[in-house]
């Protein structure tokens, strides 16, 4: 039973007879008592009134823009002159553009390294926090790992820029104590890529950590008892019990981590502005630059469509793969 979801403790709706009528709206129309007719009628009106702000807002600000974005990807438009239809030109230009290519490659590399790092760290820390320790210490660790999540990525990137400064940064000062010469973190391609990943993981591993804590809490203690009777100790216990039983959580955590890493923008924008060169330019940064700096709205939309297709493909692939590797109790 989860401790993170308040809804779970409430009586399950499906256990009630009324839920049957709800699961099949309209079924009661002829069967129901005649006196309920006006109530159902006013309910229907109320439903649409209640939904109106959400549905209209989403239609206007999400659904229409999605369609518009796809349509726009086939036009050349700079806002000033009238849009002209160019077919797949935007897509072929975008695919051949070296900056766009590099940015997509950077993004994929970033996702692979950052997500692996983030999930590994979160899982290791979650397992360590869940084992026996005083309650106040557990609360302290949980709060400490959760804390960066509440800060803005812009502020975090601002102070991290100073921490990683080559001459007066704290990171290099600590390294100098160990006799390591100053690392040019933000002025070399490798260094800035490393900083962007470190800062991103620093801020976001707490979210995966929370998911893993929830997952671990749902593994029955009896499973571990049985495993230890069978002779499993220490790391083997986690390898053969924790990891398989945690696989549904791992799937959710990895899907969410990948989707959010694919959209990384704030950290590289504030830390490095995509540089040096194109070394930390990400897909979303290129969308931003082509639309709002070069006014190539069609190309920006084409890049956006490509990014969405990649996100959808990866998510679908993950769920398909999960059928093989995810173990449900």
């Amino acid at each position, binding site marked *: 039973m989860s401790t993170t979801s308040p809804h779970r403790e409430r009586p399950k709706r499906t256990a*009630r007879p009324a839920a049957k009528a709800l699961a099949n709206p309209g079924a009661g129309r002829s069967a129901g008592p005649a006196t309920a007719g006006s109530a159902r009628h006013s309910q229907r009106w109320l439903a649409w009134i209640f939904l109106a702000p959400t549905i209209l807002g989403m239609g206007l600000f999400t659904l229409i823009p999605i369609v518009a974005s796809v349509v726009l990807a086939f036009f050349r438009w700079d806002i000033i002159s009238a849009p002209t239809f160019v077919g797949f030109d935007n897509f072929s230009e975008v695919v051949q553009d070296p900056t766009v290519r590099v940015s997509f490659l950077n993004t994929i590399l970033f996702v692979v390294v950052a997500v692996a790092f983030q999930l590994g760290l979160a899982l290791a820390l979650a397992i360590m926090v869940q084992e026996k320790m005083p309650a106040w210490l557990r609360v302290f660790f949980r709060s400490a790992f959760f804390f960066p999540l509440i800060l803005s990525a812009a502020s975090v990137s*601002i102070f991290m820029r100073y921490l990683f400064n080559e001459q007066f940064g704290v990171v290099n000062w600590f390294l100098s104590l160990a006799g390591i010469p100053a690392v040019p973190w933000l002025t070399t391609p490798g260094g800035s890529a490393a900083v962007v990943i470190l800062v991103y993981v620093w801020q976001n591993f707490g979210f995966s950590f929370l998911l893993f804590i929830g997952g671990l809490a749902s593994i029955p203690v009896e499973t571990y008892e049985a495993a230890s009777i069978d002779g499993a100790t220490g790391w083997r216990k986690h390898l053969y019990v924790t990891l398989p039983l945690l696989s549904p959580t791992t799937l959710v955590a990895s899907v969410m981590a990948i989707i959010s890493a694919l959209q990384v923008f704030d950290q590289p924008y504030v830390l490095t502005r995509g540089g040096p060169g194109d070394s930390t330019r990400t897909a979303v940064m290129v969308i931003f630059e082509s639309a709002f700096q070069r006014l190539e709205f069609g190309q920006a939309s084409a890049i956006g469509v490509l990014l969405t297709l990649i996100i959808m493909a990866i998510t679908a692939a993950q769920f398909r793969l999960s059928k093989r590797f995810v173990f449900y109790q």
Partner: protein
Amino acid sequence: MTTTTDHGLAGHSPRLSEGLPETSPNRRRFSWNFAIRIVLLLIAATLTLGPVLWTLSTSLRSPSESFKLPPSFFPWNPDFTSYGEVFQQLNIFLLVLNSALVTGLIAVGQMVTAAMAGYAFAHLKFRGRGALFSIVLATMMVPVQVTIVPVFMLIRGMGLSDTLLALILPAIPTAFGTFLMRQYFMGLPAELAEAAAIDGASPWRTFRSVYAPLAMPGMAIVGILAFNFHWNEFFRPLILTISEQNFTLPLGLVSLQGNLGTGSISVVLAGVVLSMIPALVVFMFGQRALQDGLTAGTGK
């Protein structure tokens, strides 16, 4: 090296672990496993909190001393000149006012609209309910960057470009909030509506006087999540606002950093600390709610 005291992931339920014979208090002894684990966790916690502590501490150094190494982690002699300096270089009051206005209106707007939509999806009967709910959920998958160009045009078309409303309006309809509120209302028994109907209450009255008050904790989660997310938001304000009088805090801070170059760290960091205060308040009072909200709907 595993001792019997380290057995089992007791987690949050001490009741279960207390029942195990292995954890009886008189078996307690020093465990290397425990010690190594705590040291590793302390290192991780230091790395997480250290940069924030350094930020706070350095903001309390005088601007001329802010570059000095070794770094300071504890503000022994706090010097508040950097804070005065921030107020001179940046119209902090306006930035805070803008951020508060934008974030507050989005939070309240999300709480109200999500509660209404969530209630409709959970307890009201109408045709196409399932399909409509699926569409709402599907919009959660679409990244904001993909729709930003058309949203930008739409805002221009509505004559709202470079206004705070441009930030507020598109952020109010919330798929995640609607989902969360639907789950919350599903947890409230349908019998309440039946009882209210027998007492002669209209469906509207039932919502306003019976269900909405009961759903306040859920609405609080939606509000806290919205506040935290939009207070920290950078991408949309960067695109949708142009003039400095419409900047929100994150934008103002980044522009402050740009103006100063590497002039003085402590002034920039003083601004960063000021921007963190609301987040800290939310953290202290709403940590549980934030955690619940973030992990809601993940199945765990």
